[in-house]
């Protein structure tokens, strides 16, 4: 009895909270028919923003994939004084409001900021351009790879790495043959989360992007802009595209991890 009550309330909540709004977006997007949908997502601004967002998400994932693994490795393998402090620092981007991140970066990299000052004297501008948005995305998505890879590194015995060393492996060899295979699937999971989060990042992006259509406008900013301009159809159409990409990503993730466990069970 309790089981059905639990199932009903659980699934009901999920439908109410997630499935219903998503359905609404879909119906909204297809209201004008497929042709209108296509027109909405194929305008130069829409195409650009989508391409820009995907490039951004790819770059973010690549950098945080490497740096996140590095940080996770340092935290898992070395003992140092400020370790627990650094460790809790990693999670902060989740707790800090995205807008706060955005304006902090805007201040820091601004013409009068600590970093931005010298840079702007040198004629380099980070904010309102790809590097600036990238910095914001790196910040916002930083925890995912670290937190996915960290536990695996923590669990995997240091012994395997040392064994490889005594068997003739150099530092890179140890990573390539022992550490990397161990963290591989966790890294994929972390990267997908990073990518998805970057894809949907809005709060910090709107602060630092400059919001220039066809220059620095990401897909979520496009949606925001179109919605505020009253073009609900264009906003919904782009939302649908983003939802679909995310869905494919997470479904692929499920499939990949499912296959991995399945493969293990078969052996």
């Amino acid at each position, binding site marked *: 009895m*309790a*089981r059905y*009550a*639990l199932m009903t*309330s*659980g699934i009901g*909540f999920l439908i109410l909270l997630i499935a219903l709004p998503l359905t609404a977006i879909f119906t909204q997007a297809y209201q004008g028919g497929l042709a209108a949908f296509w027109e909405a997502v194929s305008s*130069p*601004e829409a195409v650009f923003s989508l391409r820009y967002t995907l490039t951004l998400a790819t770059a973010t994932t690549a950098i945080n994939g490497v740096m996140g693994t590095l940080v996770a490795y340092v935290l898992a393998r070395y003992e140092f004084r400020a370790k627990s402090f650094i460790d809790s620092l990693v999670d902060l981007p989740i707790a800090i409001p995205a807008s706060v991140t955005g304006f902090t970066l*805007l*201040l820091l990299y*601004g*013409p*009068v*900021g600590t970093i*931005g000052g010298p840079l702007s004297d040198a004629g380099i*501008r980070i*904010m*309102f351009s790809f590097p600036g948005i990238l910095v914001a995305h790196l910040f916002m998505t930083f925890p995912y790879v670290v937190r996915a890879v960290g536990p695996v590194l923590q669990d995997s015995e240091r012994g395997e790495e040392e064994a490889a060393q005594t068997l003739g492996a150099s530092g890179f060899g140890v990573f390539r043959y022992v550490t990397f295979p161990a963290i591989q699937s966790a890294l994929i999971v972390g990267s997908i989360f990073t990518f998805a989060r970057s894809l949907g990042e809005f709060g910090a992006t*709107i602060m630092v992007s*400059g*919001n*220039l*259509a*066809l220059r620095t406008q990401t897909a979520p900013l496009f949606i*925001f*802009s*179109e*919605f*505020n*301009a*009253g073009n609900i159809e264009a906003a919904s159409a782009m939302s649908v595209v983003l939802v679909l990409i995310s869905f494919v990503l997470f479904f692929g993730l499920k499939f990949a991890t499912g296959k991995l466990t399945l493969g293990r069970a078969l052996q």
Partner: protein
Amino acid sequence: MSVSRILTIVALGVLITISLTTFWDLARQSSGRTITIYGYSAMEEPLKNEVIPAFQEWYRQTHGEEVEFVTAFAGSGHLFNQIRAGAPAQVAIFATEIEPTKLMEDGLITTDWRTFPGNGTFALTVAVILTRDGNPENIKSFDDLGNNGVDVLLPDPTTSGGAQWAILALYGSAFLNGTGIPSDGGTEPAAKLLKRVINNASSLPESARKALTQFGLGYGDALLTYENDALVDIAKGLDYEIIMPQSTIAIEPKVVIIDANIGEEDAALVEEFMDFLWGTEAQEAMAKHHFRVVDQTVFRRHATNFQKVDSPFTIDDLGGWDEASTQIIEGAWREAQRD
């Protein structure tokens, strides 16, 4: 007690709490005399600090009753979306005429604001250029914003309805040639100017307020903004300089009543508030907050605070809002961005 039972109870508890708070919220709203006002961002300070308290005082003295105000201030586009989605605004002040027009098409507005004094405008302002102190880039006109190496900030006309004035000012200054008569080259010089300015733009913040904030953080050499906003910042002691172009656009915000949200019992109150906006007290308040008010007696008292505009033009000189929004905002501006 099993874990699943505890979870069930927790889930039910959450659902009940959510529904209760929702109903409580709905129930709370219907008590006493209230009036709900939505206004675009620049209206926040004068209304909240001066006009509303003054009206409440006046109402207390004439009717012996309290009036409660519910207010919301945001970008025009945002206000429009909320009202269309059912926000209970009774009076709304938009930066442009685009939103009221759409709301009228939707049937939410039935009283034409053009029947109000000043065609629905009770205070106006103009588009100006704000530069750093001493005007280091030596900007004299809208055209100078297109000069090489000038870093321009201007709000995004797609998101902020109000920001469209900035584009219209740019466009109009070139199109009307500072004479009020369309130039010989037709729309060509205007489109070119838009293109030059967008190429110089480093950021298109989604609201005029945010543009001002970014400018304050040190971004940009010049900011295209409203005179009233610029004067607020200068009054705060910020080291800016207002550059008044020889020719600029008169920005006419529109105050409208959302008839769909006004019940019979509120109609008189709303009407009294509307009248109050054009009264001396409200006009004084708006002038104090750097708006060029429509009451000429009041304006003359404050005239020294405003720079003279040699050759102002209005939206009508650009063919009215319908044409301006399709030809300039949706047309020329998008074109300029796409190149």
